[in-house]
């Protein structure tokens, strides 16, 4: 059955950053350069081709874009400057929008103004909320203690509520992702067993990003890994050990050791990435979608204010510390409520999932092929 091509899709993808895909004339350099492609996975050219021809269904159910970490080698080798790396990046954005049932991420990716507006709005609301909450029951002069302005206990509760919201959206989108990429596949059925045997891959990919390590270029992997680990560490600290962090006066190094390390990790890597994007120092930094900037700036603000409020608090300037804290939260809230489920950050969930799915699929299809073999032999005989 012939698949209907949609010449218009390529225009739609432009908004997501795929500016040069039309230039590709399919020499195959990119696939042959990429360490991930091999055997039947022709990568990234196949995705490029599907995009050129607008094979929406294929792209929609495909995992390829997630399997790329954007080391940039393909783009460097491309004889026509068709930017395969950036195209994969754009496809990831597009897929994120497709997975998201609310339509928010579609909106964000297509209009940075909307995204910015939403972030500012949520930030202001959060700010106002926390100020109101603080003044209603505490004093701005106290960072912690009995009448702390923002007592960690309450913030902790709030964090969990926020996390609940976040998980709800992210999980529902992940479910949609599963349905598109695995669930609705009629030709291949995936038994629970198949999923279970490979389940260990999920955390493995998540924490080690071992696949990225396979790229010939190591630096992007290191930066990405440090950033991700610091981020996760920080998340864990906030979700589980918040009270040990805020409470003073003595420093509880069991947590703060991690806290500081993570903070430094975040600030340094974010700064590095921003510098890179400003100077276009590396291939993967050549093209920056607005959402990339939004992500970095927000991250920098959050990390920065996080450190700041800690320093101020420890140096006894509680008022300033509280102000910094409020600003910090004004960053945290939109970050967790908007960025993580609907924008760039969602990839921390999609990518490991995709790799996990890909491996499950590989297993099942391999098994299928094996099963088919004797039959095939019989036919030829």
């Amino acid at each position, binding site marked *: 059955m012939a698949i209907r091509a949609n010449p218009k899709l390529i225009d739609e993808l432009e908004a997501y950053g795929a500016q040069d895909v039309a230039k590709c004339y399919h020499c*195959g350099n990119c696939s042959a350069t990429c360490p991930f492609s091999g055997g*039947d996975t022709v990568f990234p050219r196949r995705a490029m081709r599907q995009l050129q021809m607008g094979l929406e269904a294929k792209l929609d159910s495909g995992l390829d874009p997630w399997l790329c970490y954007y080391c940039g080698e393909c783009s460097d080798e491309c004889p026509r*400057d068709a930017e395969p790396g950036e195209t994969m990046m754009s496809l990831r954005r597009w897929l994120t929008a497709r997975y998201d049932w609310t339509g928010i991420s579609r909106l964000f990716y297509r209009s940075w103004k909307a995204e910015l507006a939403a972030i500012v709005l949520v930030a202001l609301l959060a700010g106002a909320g926390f100020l109101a909450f603080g003044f209603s029951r505490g004093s701005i002069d106290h960072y912690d203690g009995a009448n702390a302005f923002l007592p960690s206990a309450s913030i902790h509760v709030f964090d969990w509520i926020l996390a609940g919201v976040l998980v709800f959206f992210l999980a529902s989108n992940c479910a949609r992702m599963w349905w598109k990429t695995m669930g609705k596949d009629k030709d291949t059925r995936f038994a629970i067993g198949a999923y279970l045997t490979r389940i260990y891959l999920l955390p493995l990919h998540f924490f080690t990003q071992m696949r990225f390590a396979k790229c010939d270029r190591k630096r992007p992997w290191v930066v990405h890994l440090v950033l991700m680990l610091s981020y996760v560490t920080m998340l864990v600290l906030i979700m589980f050990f918040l009270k040990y962090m805020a409470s003073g006066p003595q420093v509880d190094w069991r947590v703060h050791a991690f806290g500081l390390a993570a903070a430094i990790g975040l600030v340094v890597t974010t700064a590095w990435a921003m510098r890179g994007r400003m100077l276009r120092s590396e291939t993967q930094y050549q093209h920056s979608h607005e959402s990339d900037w939004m992500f970095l700036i927000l991250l920098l603000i959050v990390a920065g204010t996080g450190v700041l409020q800690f320093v101020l608090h420890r140096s006894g300037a509680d008022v300033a510390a509280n102000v910094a804290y409020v600003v910090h939260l004004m960053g945290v809230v939109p970050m967790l409520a908007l960025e993580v489920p609907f924008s760039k950050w969602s990839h921390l969930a999609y990518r490991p999932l995709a790799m996990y799915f890909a491996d499950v699929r590989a297993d099942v299809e391999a098994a299928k092929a094996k099963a088919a073999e004797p039959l095939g032999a019989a036919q030829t005989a």
Partner: protein
Amino acid sequence: MTYAVGGSMRTGVYLCQTGTGDLDAVSVHGVAGYAGNLPDVEVVRDLGVLPKLDIAHLTLEFRREDLQRVVIAGDSPGFFKPTFTRALALAGGDPKEVRLASFRAFGASRGIGTARAKGVLACAVLGVPYPLAAVPDTTPVHPATLIVGGGVAGIQAALEIADADKQVYLVERTGTIGGHMAMFDKTFPTLDCAACILTPKMVAVGQHDFIDLMSYAEIEDVSGRPGAYTVKVRKKARRVDVEACVACHACMEVCPVHVSSEFDNGIAERNAVYMPFPQAVPNAYLVDEQTCTYVLSDGKKCGVCAKKCPKECIDLDQKDEIVELEVGNIVLATGYDVYDATKIERYGYGTYPNVLTALEFERLTNASGPTGGKIVCKSSRFNKRKKADEWVFDADEGQAPRSVAIIHCVGSRDARHNAYCSRVCCMYSLKFAHLVKEKLPDADCYEFYIDMRAFGKGYEEFADRIKAEGTFCVRGRTAKVFESDGQMMIRGEDMVKEKLVEFPIDMILLAIGLIPSRGTDALAQMLSLPTDEGWFSELDYNSDPTDTERGGVSVAGVCQAPKDIPDTVAQASAVAAGVLKSIAIGRGLDSRADLSLADIEARAASVVEAREEASWRSERTPS
């Protein structure tokens, strides 16, 4: 076609640039200003680079201004024409009255840019084709002709002209004529041996009464004007008397120096005193001053060859001499060099011994090559002189490759190397595949290609035949050559099978692209000729593919753009037409660059007058 006879046409001039090429060559602003003062021009708009044109808006404007003729002016205005044609048609005008003023087409390059552009625009506004107006005056022509380059193009042009009993000076940089074609084994698609086709022509040149063959010589300087050029030629010291030498090899046998042979593209060695190849014309030895011990030591060492020569025709102290030639026409046939494969690391040329360039393989497979045409892999051997191991071709020791891969478009069709297509590689790659299959029937042969450009007479059929012979044509130019435990591996994508292929390979041939030969720029400077992508620019892409901006200077063969042998030969003969024509009437055209804007305006005007007198002509021209 209909022209405005008498009555004026309300004309609009729209300046649109595509932004390709050199934007600073023409001051668009200046041209716009000039356009305003041209007759009948009512509207002048500078729409800038790659404007987003709105047809509806244009239509309205055409209506409002009631324009009957629209002139699009720019570097390549044709790219916007359909938009304007549609708009003018919608506005109820005559779509034929959309005219182009193409700055690029008529050579508005740096320096003369703006003035030229104005002239082109003036003609377009008057509805006069620029070449019809911009006809330079004629000047007396000296009957002798200089041809630079002794490849097949130079040889063909020389013979065409000399066969009309007109004096030709053929200047060749190397020790023999024949150029690259002489190195080839077979020629596609007929597979007749290059030597069989070329050697008779070379012999004819060598014997011709009207051809003064100056081999091992270079152009030093060109002065004078079209029709009367004075050319300084440096006759490099050959150090062997061409007339006396009988090519007896005696000198070569005693020469202690061994260097890699240019003619064999480095896969074989020659001595410091050598003959490029057995059928060389002139069939005489020469001494390579770069490597000759005697020359390098200022006569202190060696010099045995001179003593050994039975005819005593070697003079190792011979000095270069400068000769001056008076010529009327100059034909450039300087040909090409090949792209430097080491610039593309991923193919491992220079790293892996059995990655060869096309020219190296031509010599390897050639009956007169180092292995007598036997296709073998390089084998390692200890070089006593260099005291080091080296990889060499050895007909006896060398293993026959079990598999050969040919990689297309090496250095061509690539933004990082040469953006252009080198035109000949697809076909010679197919030829290689045939030669491999013919000599090693059991060897696997792969072609990694992007587009199989088999466009000439009998080429498509040739391509089919090669596929039928069992060569695997893999759609997808490969990306990587590497080594895994001692075995060379190739990795590429087979798009039709939709899979990555990675397999061991014994020999890899790089279908290397063509680049302008060394010294092309210098020559262009000397003659103040424009070039594009390094190749000499022809006067008019379509209607004048062999003449140039400079009167009396024409281009033949690959130095104008990559070409295969049939096209080169045809073009070389075409050049002769221009030359013979000018000699026949004793006058030739001056340089177009010498025409002032005023001249062009005047000539364009007179063309219009002539046309109005003779409007009967219109029915003879297409409508």
